[in-house]
């Protein structure tokens, strides 16, 4: 176990990941992670907009996990968030369990966003903001669109079937 921990850390490093959190995600944690990442990135060469986009993507993902993860322990929602740097771009990875019956809708929404250009995303965001959230949303229903707008290429996503009830939903957002 102890030896493996080093291997695990090295493995993250090889993938360009400089921050990773797996477990219960809470609002307090979100604020701390955000602030720490901001400081870490500001020490590097990242510009203001980049730092804020990474920060924003981490917050949206964390709040998605808090609201929608289908793996819970009492009041906490479980998920994983990682932040890395590769090919001169920051990226954010995010994953959590979802009920299999939610996959269709998620896939549909995310595929739609993948096929939009920057301008279409901007217009879609403004239209959706006017319309208000869909019934299944407990936020404003804008999180994915916001991330897609801030990303430098289309959001990648995947569903890995775990059993007949749950799948692991993961996303990669390149800033």
């Amino acid at each position: 176990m102890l030896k493996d921990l080093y291997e695990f850390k090295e493995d993250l490093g090889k993938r360009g990941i400089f921050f990773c959190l797996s477990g219960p995600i809470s609002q307090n944690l979100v604020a701390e992670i955000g602030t720490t990442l901001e400081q870490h990135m500001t020490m590097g060469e990242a510009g203001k907009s980049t730092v804020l986009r990474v920060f924003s993507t981490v917050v949206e993902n964390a709040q998605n996990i808090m609201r929608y993860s289908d793996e819970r322990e009492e009041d906490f929602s479980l998920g994983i968030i990682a932040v890395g740097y590769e090919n001169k771009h920051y990226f954010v990875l995010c994953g959590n369990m979802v009920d299999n019956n939610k996959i269709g809708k998620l896939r549909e929404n995310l595929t739609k966003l993948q096929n939009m250009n920057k301008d279409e995303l901007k217009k879609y965001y403004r239209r959706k903001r006017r319309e208000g959230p869909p019934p299944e949303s407990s936020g404003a229903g804008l999180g994915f669109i916001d991330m897609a707008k801030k990303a430098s290429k289309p959001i990648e996503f995947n569903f890995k079937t775990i059993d007949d009830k749950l799948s692991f939903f993961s996303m990669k957002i390149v800033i």
Partner: protein
Amino acid sequence: MNSLIIEATKYTPEISFDCEQHTLGIKGKSYPENTSVFYQPVFEWLEEYLENIGEQNITVNMELIYFNSSSSKVLMDFCDVLDEAASDGKRITLNWIYEEDDEDALEFGEEFQEDLESVTFNLVEKAPER
């Protein structure tokens, strides 16, 4: 009525609505877990204030370093309330304050500006704090 002062936290902005100076300020970051819980008293105060106000010039300063997507919706609603009051004859100036190299904040400001018809809207660039 009394002024509304709410101190900033890590994830909610400072609210300083001064009903004597007629300056309303929202400043900081906005990504609360539950947006409507935080903003409900803000909207209630604003509604009462606008009902009782006369011909005075009102200045609204919005200086948000960062806000999440559900706050973005609330801020739009906030601007809409101001715009409606302005179309009823209230004299409202809305300053959207953003840091020099923050493209996204500028873009949000420009979008709000396009949507608003009656308030006097200014995009105000300021130098970064650090």
